[in-house]
């Protein structure tokens, strides 16, 4: 398992799942791919299909309508898969925690491995969170 685990750490393919976010976290995720931050240095890349994912990067406060899709996406991802909650909404609910359609932060529905708070989190914070996740794997 040693070699596979090494490969897993060095090549995290990220599937970005928007669970009712305001798009601000999503823009910061795209910033990470740009020349200034370039997370491909660590072997990370964004993939289009959840079947290729090693990391589910979930942003948003999870409204009630999104819960089934969130759980389905998690079940479809090939295991082992790590989940990262992105932004204040993803971690705690943020300013939407008392909303009428708020259905709990992400870790109420799927197990979360790393939290990246911030509204929106800076690209440095996202990279820091991912590096901590790599240390944990």
């Amino acid at each position: 398992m040693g070699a596979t685990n090494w490969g897993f750490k060095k090549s995290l393919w990220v599937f970005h799942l928007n669970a009712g976010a305001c798009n601000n976290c999503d823009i910061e995720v795209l910033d990470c791919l740009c020349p200034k931050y370039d997370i491909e240095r660590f072997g990370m890349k964004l993939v289009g299909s959840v079947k290729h994912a090693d990391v589910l990067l979930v942003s948003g406060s999870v409204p009630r309508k999104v819960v089934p899709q969130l759980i389905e996406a998690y079940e479809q991802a090939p295991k082992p898969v790590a989940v990262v909650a992105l932004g204040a909404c993803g971690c705690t609910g943020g300013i939407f925690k008392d909303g009428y359609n708020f259905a709990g932060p992400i870790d109420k529905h799927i197990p979360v491995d790393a939290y990246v708070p911030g509204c929106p989190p800076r690209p440095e914070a996202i990279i820091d969170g991912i590096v901590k996740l790599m240390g944990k794997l």
Partner: protein
Amino acid sequence: MASTLSMILYFLIFPGLLFTAAVGLLTTWVDRKVSARVQWRVGPPWYQPFADILKLMGKEIVIPEGAKRTGFLLAPLAGLAAVGVVSMILWLTNMRGTGFVGDLIGVIYLLTIPSLGMIIGASASSNPLASVGASREMKLVLAYELPFVIAIFTAVTKISPMSLRLDSIIQYQDANGVLLGSASCIIAFIVCLLCMQAKLTYPPFDIPEAETELMDGTHMEYSGPALAVVKTTQAMMLFTLPVFFITIFWGGLKLTGWGLLYTIVKYVIIVTIAVLIKNTNPRVRIDQAVRFFCGPVTVLAIIGMILAVAGF
């Protein structure tokens, strides 16, 4: 018996699967690194493709609900085996001069198997986006296959006596200089480079796996080791096609002395051209791609053929 065993070893290890996969994966790193530098980024470390494959080997295979299990899982393996055989034929012909009548036709035929494998696999996956990708791949294969074959046969027409054996093409070039020195073969080589872009599904012809609209299209439902097979097949195609073009048009592979250096330089030039075309062109629509290959490219290939018949 001994020759059967050595053929199996040739197929599995040296010119075949293992060697081609290793060099092909290293070439995908060159591709990613050059792309990153073009975009002013740093890019991944050299071991990145190997880490990707190792990781995919350790993951679960998710079979989609309603998929045809056998076809879904066996189709990529057919592609992998076909590229391995092509690589073995090319290298054995180059290294030891062994060939058989019509091996050129065999190579052209085997080079379409990976595309066919992806079409079958994507159709078996019961995913609407994957089947859109499969139908686009089918149209693309139908469009580029004709100019590709005409361009390859330009080289066959050019040598004398005409022969469908790879080793006689190499021998002719050893005696009379590389085919790329003639006008007809330069045209054929350009056509081949354009078709290579489509065979590898690189931009501007990455229509079957369009990342932004089809989410990787034909590969969409593959995961874990099956995706590793798909990625390895693509990497091996990236290695095998330039080797094929060097064999046909550019004097064959020379593996001793300065010839080795020239061979590597030729290979790197072809790969770099492919990567630069990939990074400087947007994706075209499928109808534009089909019109492009059936129109200008086929006409260009036929002009090259006519020039070859006229003796240029």
